[in-house]
């Protein structure tokens, strides 16, 4: 039975005050109107032109009047549902809960059996989908690595491995291009039962990356239009790097990213008014000596929180990127630190959906047991964000009076009941188990838990007819798109 335990924060974190938010919005609107954003898609340019934007066809540049942006974004829904395929697995994006997912889409895997590093494959996506199905920290699944054994059809096979091994909502970040997106929509329709049901309860959503600075990818934006037309929620992730693809100043990086993501969300509303969209801004830093990608930076953590506020300021849900940082080894000091600064701060900021559990080396390397470490950190954050129980049960005055000075609380029924509310980290404080003494090494303990899930957790299988339909769609895609 797949279970989801979202974070429901009882106190909130903001890093931008209303004036600062307003400054960012004005600057973003100004950039969109005066500088413009590059859309290398004739279809996109035509739609913008039809709706009154200033289009430079040669430079593929669109200048969007502020009124047009605000009017379009005003049609985007703030609240909607991302559906799972069994009861209790829907994500309600209404600003009251944060739902987390795995990271993606890595290219390397530490082999489950040999422990050797190798290229990732479809079976990795399937195995980790089963693990995700069995962990309550994971509310939706990003295909965690690339199904590199399926060539050009890898993105669709990633969806296939995901739908087949978890009932939880799946979000693709790799299906790009108009034709592949149409196949992904067909697969989602097969899962939902019909196109109408898919629109009402989408089992699939999509994330498209922008190209910094101030541009989009043809395949990405054309896939996004397919999703918006079909009612598949689609989000846009900008990844400005301070110093290289963005100014070396967090404010400027946020404005660049905001303009990229918002311009795409405007297009979606022009294509399909009221289409469910979401925004994500992942600011990073440039290594000043190598130009490498740096994410373990305090300015980045601040930008993560600001990004949540900025998405909500447009009136759309926010997706945050957390965990999965620079470290290359599980169970390191650095990972512990970075997870708090990313996952906890974003949850307290009220992000609606968040990705990032289970990957290392800046989201490139799948170390199977890493997700168990991240799961434990997630639950620590979940309990932390819930705040304190100061109700009469929480104050327990009658029990304090009953025990009195010098006594103890071990034999109280109140203790028996509420001791279960004290969440105890399982990896650092392993519980007694019928399997005998847990391994001494924490990494082995994490691996033992992962293996137990892989052996014992049985995701609810797809109905045979749905399974057959997915196979037929994949065969058709292979005929049309090549393998």
């Amino acid at each position: 039975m797949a279970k989801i335990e979202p974070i429901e924060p009882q106190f909130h974190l903001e890093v931008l005050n209303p004036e600062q938010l307003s400054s960012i919005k004005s600057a973003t609107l100004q950039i969109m109107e005066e500088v413009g954003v590059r859309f290398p898609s004739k279809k996109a340019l035509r739609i913008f032109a039809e709706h009154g934007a200033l289009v430079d066809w040669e430079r593929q540049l669109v200048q969007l009047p502020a009124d047009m942006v605000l009017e379009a974004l005003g049609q985007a829904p703030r609240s909607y549902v991302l559906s799972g395929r069994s009861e209790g697995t829907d994500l309600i994006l209404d600003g009251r809960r944060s739902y987390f997912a795995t990271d993606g889409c890595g290219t390397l895997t530490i082999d489950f059996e040999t422990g050797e590093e190798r290229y990732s494959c479809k079976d990795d996506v399937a195995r980790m989908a089963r693990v995700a199905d069995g962990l309550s920290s994971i509310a939706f699944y990003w295909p965690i690595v690339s199904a590199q054994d399926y060539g050009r059809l890898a993105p669709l096979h990633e969806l296939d491995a995901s739908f087949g091994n978890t009932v939880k909502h799946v979000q693709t970040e790799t299906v790009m291009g108009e034709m592949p997106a149409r196949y992904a929509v067909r697969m989602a329709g097969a899962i939902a039962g019909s196109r109408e049901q898919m629109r009402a309860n989408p089992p699939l959503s999509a994330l498209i990356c922008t190209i910094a600075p101030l541009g989009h990818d043809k395949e990405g934006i054309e896939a996004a239009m397919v999703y918006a037309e079909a009612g598949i929620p689609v989000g846009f992730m900008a990844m400005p790097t301070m110093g290289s693809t963005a100014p070396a100043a967090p404010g400027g990086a946020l404005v660049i990213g905001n303009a990229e993501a918002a311009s795409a969300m405007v297009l979606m509303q022009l294509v399909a008014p009221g289409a469910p969209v979401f925004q994500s801004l992942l600011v990073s830093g440039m290594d000043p000596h190598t130009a490498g990608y740096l994410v373990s930076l305090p300015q980045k953590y601040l930008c993560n929180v600001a990004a949540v506020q900025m998405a909500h300021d447009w009136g759309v849900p926010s997706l945050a990127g957390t965990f999965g940082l620079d470290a290359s080894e599980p169970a390191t000091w650095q990972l512990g630190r970075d997870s708090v600064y990313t996952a906890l701060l974003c949850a307290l900021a009220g992000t609606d959906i968040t990705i990032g559990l289970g990957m290392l080396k800046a989201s490139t390397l799948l170390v199977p047991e890493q997700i168990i470490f991240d799961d434990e950190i997630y639950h620590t954050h979940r309990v932390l964000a819930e705040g304190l129980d100061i109700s009469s049960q929480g104050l327990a005055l009658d029990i304090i009076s009953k025990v009195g000075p010098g006594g103890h609380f071990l034999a109280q029924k109140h203790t028996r009941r509420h001791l279960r509310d004290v969440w105890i980290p399982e990896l650092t404080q392993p519980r007694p188990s019928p399997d005998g003494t847990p391994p001494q090494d924490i990494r082995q303990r994490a691996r033992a838990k992962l293996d137990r899930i892989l052996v014992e957790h049985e995701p609810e299988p797809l109905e045979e007819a749905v399974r057959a339909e997915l196979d037929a769609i994949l065969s058709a895609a292979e005929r049309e798109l090549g393998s």
Partner: protein
Amino acid sequence: MSQEIYDKLAKAVIDGEPEDAEEWAKKALEQGLDPLDCINEGLSPGIDRVGELFATGDYFLPDLIIGGDAMKAALNILEPALTQGQGRHVLGQVVLGTVEGDLHEIGKTLVGTMLTANGFLVTDIGVDKTAAEFVAAIKESGATLVGASALLTTTMLHQKEVIEALKEAGLRDQVKVMVGGAPITESWAKEIGADGYADDAITAVAVAKKLVGAA
């Protein structure tokens, strides 16, 4: 009918409901059931189940303690009704206390609860007890096992005095000595000539069983 009451007694222990345990013990006697059967067929399987659930990680210490309390509540009713010569099977008699100058109680009480729940008959003499008071309690109860608890580095020295006092009283050969408490280590136990040491209350039961030859 009798099986139903045994089951209720077991359930009261498993659920940790001392009031229910007492009530069902009274009903058992009213209906003329053999108190020894009630213990062996109801309470003992109940407390065994509590132990199993604890071992698998499903139960916590309070479940164990309140289960033990439920068992005690029923025994208080049933034991006085046992006929002459009848007695419940116990693994051994234990005297338990915290040493002189030390007022720490919880660790010692936990060990007592665990030993009781596992079939020992425990006389808990309380805290701040001199070596002489330990010896007197051993003589009175006929215990073959004594547990001396100390939480402070300043009071742990008194554990040694308990052993010395047993020697002086000529009882050392008949009584096994266990020591425990936060500052206590295996090597300290050896140094003062104790027979057993455990790090926590669960291990203490295993050590006690070994010392009385029941393991």
